[in-house]
Structure formats: C-alpha cells, structure tokens
C-alpha cells in the first residue's frame, strides 16, 4: 500500500530541538549535582547521547548516559511473528538519589514510558524522574506526559511519526507517514 510522507522536522530543526531540550533540562535541574539521561532503546539512545553532549557544552552539570531495553517488558510479545533479539539495559552508574531524564524520540500511547519506569526502578531509587521526547503526539492510552518536548503535534489515527537518527539509520529525519486508503 503506498505511503504519503511529509516532513515534520528538518535535520536542522531536529538539531535545534535537541539543543532546546538540553537547555530546558538544564534550567529545570538547576542545582542538581549530576543528571542521568537514560535512552529508551532504539532511538531514545542517540537522542539521550545528543542531549547529554549539548548539556555538557552548556557546562551545567555532570551527565551520565544509560540505555533501557523494554523488550522484556512488552505485554504483546506473544503476538509477535518473530521473537525479538534482546539488547539488554545498560545503566552502569548508581541511580540512587540522581535526577534521571528518560529520553525517547516520540511519545504516543505512553505504554513504553510506563514500562521504562518499571525497568528503571529495578536499577535503583532515583531522586526524580523526568521525561524528554523529540515529538509529543496525541493518542495517550496511559496517564503519562513528557516534561520536555521539542515539538507537540496532533495527528490522525492512521498517521505515524518516524524519527531517524544518523547513528541508527544513517540519516537524520523526522516525518509523518500516512498510509493511503485502498480504493
């Protein structure tokens, strides 16, 4: 079935969005001795790494970076035609007492964030957990809202936000894909 694709953010706008997220996270965490940015696998990981780099440029605080793999937390694994390979979470620092910012490229239903919180708390007891996303789109099924977002959009049910990062996909892009209805 053919797809219509329209750009939501250009590469430059994505970079501006990341810089804005870093600035807002710094402002909201003034006085914190250190921050931990934890990316939700897959594309939350490059987002977390880029925000961390921007925060370090701003010199506001020390930043740890970790990753969370939610595969083991999916409640729909049984419906998968293929069993996914696990990446595993990697949080190689002590979370206790830290301000943690979970990072994901898009928030939609809120289910991933709920699962990420469950996995995160298996590593320790952070002081505070915030959520940063590049794109916040409507359609929440769980009462979870981002603290920081670069772009907020309202999309129709059949539309899908696709964010690509050079580190994972070989290019930076942020588009909306709409599947054409069959005639």
């Amino acid at each position: 079935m053919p797809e219509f694709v329209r750009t939501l953010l250009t590469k430059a706008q994505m970079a501006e969005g990341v810089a804005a997220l870093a600035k807002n996270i710094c402002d909201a965490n003034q006085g914190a001795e250190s921050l931990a940015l934890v990316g939700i696998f897959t594309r939350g990981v490059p987002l977390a790494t880029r925000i961390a780099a921007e925060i370090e440029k701003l010199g506001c605080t020390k930043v740890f970076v970790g990753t969370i793999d939610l595969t083991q937390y999916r409640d729909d694994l049984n419906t998968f035609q293929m069993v996914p390979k696990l990446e595993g979470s990697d949080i190689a620092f002590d979370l206790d007492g830290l301000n943690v910012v979970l990072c994901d490229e898009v928030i939609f239903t809120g289910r991933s964030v709920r699962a990420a919180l469950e996995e995160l708390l298996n590593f320790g007891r952070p002081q505070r957990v915030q959520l940063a996303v590049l794109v916040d789109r409507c359609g929440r099924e769980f009462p979870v809202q981002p603290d920081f977002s670069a772009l907020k959009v309202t999309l129709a049910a059949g539309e899908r936000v696709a964010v690509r990062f050079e580190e994972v996909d070989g290019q930076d892009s942020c588009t909306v894909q709409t599947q054409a209805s069959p005639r």
Partner: protein
Amino acid sequence: MTPRKDLLDIASLTDEEIAFVLDNAVPFKDLFKRSVKKVPTLKGRTMLTLFYEPSTRTRSSFEVAASRLSADVTHFDIESSSVVKGESVLDTVETLEAMRVDYIVVRHKQSGTPNLIARNTRASVINAGDGWHAHPTQALLDAFTLREIHKDLRGCRALIVGDIQHSRVARSTSLMFRRLGMNVAYLAPGSMMPREVPQEIPQFGNWRDAFDWKPDVIYLLRVQSERLDEPFFPTAAEYHKNYGLTNERVEILRERGLHLMHPGPVNRGVEITDTGMNYEKCLINQQVENGIAVRMSVLYWLRPGAVE
C-alpha cells in the same frame, strides 16, 4: 527469530537458533547483578516441572529461571501422584493439558518421552534429560560458559572424560561443541566408550595420550552412582586412579592453563578431588549460574501453542 514450540534436542536446532539462544542469555545474565533480578516477560504463564528421575540442579535451575521471568512455577510430584498407581505418561499429559500449563519441563529415564509428550500437548515441552538421548539445555549452558572465555570457539579443543556411552550430557554437549566449530576427543574406559564414535572424534584410553592431543578444556562427566555397582570398572578408587582428575593431573591443567568443566553433581574422590574442585580455572559454579540465564533465554524463545 521464528518462535518454536519445543526444545527436545540439539540436533534439530539450526545454527541460527543456537546463536539466538546463546546471544540472548547475555542480557538475561546481566539481570543477576541487579538487586531486583526479575522481569515481567512471562507474567501470567505457568511452567510445570515433570521429573520422573531425581534431579537437584536442573530442576531448581529451571524454576529459578522461570521465576526471574515472572512465570508461575509448579512441580508435578511423581512420588505422590497417580503415576505410582500406574498412570501412563499420556494420561498425565492429558491432566496437565486440562490445567493449561504453558511450559512442561520433562526428565525421564526413557529416551524419547519428551518427544511423545510434545506431540500431545499445546504446552511448550523442554527436554531436561531423557535416557541416554539428550540434555539440550546442559549443552547450551556449556557452550555459553565456554563462549565467555573464548569468544570464538572455532578450533578450541575439548576433551570429554568418563562414561560417554551412557551420558546424555556427553551426547548433547559433544554435538553442540562440534556445531560451534570445536574439536572434541573422548577419554574413557573401553566399557564406557560408545561403539560408534564419529570419525572426527579421537578416542583415548589414558590421560597421557589425551594430554598429548593438547586440549584447551577438560570436561569431566559424572560417574553415575547407580553404575558404581555395575561391571564398567572394578572400583571407584580404580576409576579415580585411571580416569579421574587426580591432584597430579590438576597440576598438569594448571601448568597448561586448561579450563575444567563438569555438569554436576560431582562425586568427590571419583571423577574429581577437592583440589580439582578448588582449581582456579574450574568453571563448575559458572556453569550453574549460566544455566539459569540460558534457560531464561530458552523460555523466552519458545512459544507455547506455536505450530511446529
């Protein structure tokens, strides 16, 4: 990776499936370092252990693995069940089918029983040892343990020592090692050497010749205590002297930096001494720990009700 319903032996696994199970065991093992060693992957599912033969570590290893994946775990107690009144395996399976368990972990003295059960249930069946036939999760955990030491096992040499003829561990692990490109040799008394050994597997009757083959790892098999009275060797002391890992042989392992494995439980003083157990390159405890991670990986991969 395509899901599979049952795990019955190593021979039916593809290379890709073996790699999938071994690779996914790594993140599962990472869980053990955390204070909360549990994920909700199998929440709401039930694993039942059905052991017609006694077991210490395999059964508890499966139970810990399932618990860490949040599955409910139950044990079908053969000793106090209708099996002792003469109920057949298939009648038992029918009962379990009615209970709608998702995984059945089976050990049975009769080769092929897990296959029979697998054909008659929607549950995923995992062979935890059947007769002389197979013990696939032991082979997978052995491979996983060696892979932690030698990233690429190709060309690595394993000497398997002991009652090879009657050992399902030897059968599965030997096949597994060869599938991963390792060279395997056997050291056993004539009475415990299989009649038909694949041509690529050298056979030795004494340690001197076996050491000359330059193994990287020594894999000792358990001398099954029930066989100690059978005429496979004169006495336990005689077996130890000729085929056991004596303290002098531990020294040779140390000089050459060889690793030591054993599927457990060990008969101290028969196949291994206390000194051997304390040898710094003895991997027995790692095998036990890795057994949980590998079995978690197997449970994660299998899909109850999937079409085989």
